[in-house]
């Protein structure tokens, strides 16, 4: 039974969450509902907003470029997400031991995350130049002629993926490091008393204890990967031959440069649905895993 005090508390709680809910409603919920509506119209921001039924969604079926961008983003995600998680966890494990200089290394791995994305991309553009870039210079010392990394369709996407890995692995590393700190020492101590080796400790203590962290990190990384936009925009402008064009870039072009906000909204909804599906799959995988 709810007492006087309880009711008072719940009232105050309502008061406290109201501003957040308001902001959420105004800046997130309403725009989402509106853009769902726009996706069924020929909205162009400026002059018209007429209901056109499923035309935008039908148009997506024939939109050759749209499917190219989805393919690019999938290939990117398949490489990027597992590598990002694996590298982030390895770095976190490596830097979890209280040794001298660990702080310096932690900072070093985290610095790319703090650098402005555009500035970093500009530096990478130069590093990846086929003739004068540092990377191909180094390769030439061992007799290899490096490819034109960002300029050919075969290597552009993988080059972009590498740059983004370098740039984003630090933030996941920090989250994993925090997760590692949260694992109580007595678990390892008792395991070691029972004769467990380093690998067994990792497999049966560290990994399961990090389950919530992994779930969070993988979800955010998947969402981030599917919404890829800025690095390819700076590095390659989606080229060559659309090899690095992403879904969000396509949405941006449709909405703001071609003034087809209705069609852009439809694409955004398709992307949102796909993100939802992957987030759901990820959730299921993590849940099943925790049964072990």
């Amino acid at each position, binding site marked *: 039974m709810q007492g006087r005090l309880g*009711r*008072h508390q719940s*009232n*105050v709680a*309502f*008061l406290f969450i*109201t501003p957040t*809910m*308001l902001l959420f*409603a*105004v800046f997130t919920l*309403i725009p989402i509902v*509106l853009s769902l509506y726009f996706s069924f119209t020929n909205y*162009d*921001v*400026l*002059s*018209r*907003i007429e209901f056109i039924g499923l035309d935008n969604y039908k*148009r997506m079926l*024939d939109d*050759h*470029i749209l499917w190219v961008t989805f393919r690019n983003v999938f290939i990117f995600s398949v490489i990027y997400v597992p590598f990002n998680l694996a590298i982030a966890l390895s770095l976190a494990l490596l830097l979890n031991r209280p040794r001298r200089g660990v702080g310096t290394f932690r900072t070093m791995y985290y610095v790319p995350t703090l650098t402005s994305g555009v500035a970093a991309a*500009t530096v*990478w*553009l*130069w*590093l*990846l*130049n*086929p*003739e*004068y*870039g540092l990377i191909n210079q180094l390769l*030439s010392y061992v007799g290899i*002629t490096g490819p*034109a*990394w*960002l*300029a*050919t*369709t075969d290597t552009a996407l993988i080059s972009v993926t590498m740059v983004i890995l370098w740039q984003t692995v630090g933030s996941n590393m920090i989250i994993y490091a925090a997760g590692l700190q949260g694992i109580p020492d007595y678990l390892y101590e008792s395991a070691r008393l029972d004769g467990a080796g380093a690998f067994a400790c990792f497999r049966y203590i560290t990994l399961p204890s990090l389950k919530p962290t992994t779930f969070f990190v993988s979800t955010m990384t998947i969402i981030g990967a599917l919404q890829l936009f800025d690095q390819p925009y700076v590095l390659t402008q989606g*080229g*060559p*031959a*659309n090899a690095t064009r992403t879904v969000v870039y396509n949405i941006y*072009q449709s909405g*703001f*440069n*071609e*003034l*087809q906000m209705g069609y852009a909204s439809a694409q955004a909804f398709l992307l949102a649905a796909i993100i939802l599906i992957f987030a759901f799959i990820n959730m299921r995988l993590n849940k099943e895993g925790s049964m072990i």
Partner: protein
Amino acid sequence: MKNMRWFAALVVIVMVLGTLMACSNNAANNTGNNTKGNNTTNAEQPTTNGKKVEVTFWGDWGGDGAIPFNVMVDAFNKSQDKIHVTYVIVEDMITKFLTASTSGGSPDIMFWDRWRTASYAPKGVLAPIDEFMKADGVPNTDFYEQALKELSSDGKLYGLPLTVDARALFYNKTILAEKGLNPPTTWDELADVAKQLTVWEGDKLVRSGFSLADVGLFNMTLQQAGGQMLNEDGTKPSFNSPEGLKVLEFWNKLMNVDKVYKLGFEAGLGEGTDAFVTGKVAMIYTGPWMLSNYMKYGKDLDFGVVAPPSGPTGGKGSVMGGFGLVIAEASKNKEAAWEFEKWWLANADNALLWAKTSNNIPGNLKAIADPFFQDNPLYKPFMETLEFAKIRPTFSGYFPMEEKAVTPNLQLFMEGKQDAATTLKKAEEQGANELKNAK
């Protein structure tokens, strides 16, 4: 205490409804504005009881780029006492203009990348200036005809040209002199000179004779071959033609037979290490906007400019681009904005002042007659080029077509992944689709 919950709920409801109403109002106003059309005649008079009319001028050139704008604004403000103009630097200007034209806060006059006229003017967000032109007796013949065409839509004129530009061939005099070569005037000469200037060391390209970095040069090269990007009414691509094939054969010769370039060669080389400045590229197509940049290097970079070499049948071609000033339909001070635009662009002296302070070629033909342009060997080739340069087709589907259909296929061709016939055919099919969808 119970009231408090109700109060909170009420606040939420009011806020939500308020926002929804604001949004639907916008949509309604939107269509309303559009039907009003060019209701410019009853705009506010510049003189209102001795108080100055405030005009807001939007542009997206900041930093040093803002200086010439402020020079012009200050000069105009001093020249009379009825109108006061303020230059506002707006980043991401087009996106902001989209929202500003529908929800208030619209600028009165705007710095305008002319090619956008084709997609924005039909939406009714720009104010036509035909009646102002007639009333003030400003003749169309004072301006580059092609530039005015790019600022027109459906028979109405939406602004005057501020700058005009077109690409011409920049060449490194020192490198050409070493080999005793003259700047090329035809495709054959271009290929020959480029080949002789190219230097390879094993599989490393040390110096490229001619930059092939930008497949966007297809349009101007096609004009040189005598072809066109679109048919007359803008409904179909017309580059899948013998002329289009000639362009690709020419590029194939440069890229794969003579090997004067390597993909990605210039990527990531910033201003200080620009491939043309450092002599890594001997010849390059670029525009007058690079002049002041290259001139900075003085003796270290001895360069010249010639009009683009002509094609196999003597065709000349370059693409004219540039900026204009347009008045927003949502502006309440259209007449004052026009006074400013007229003072700046229709008056040859002021157009010239702008041109000299900003190092741009003005759209005003009288201003161009000045010795500043006619006697300068670096500007002279651009004057020649602008005589025959053509604007991009003025259809809203042209840009999506170029970006999504033509460029990607040309890049595949340059990489050797697609033959010329397939490239043109695929670009044509996908391009036709983009044209159709842009309606």
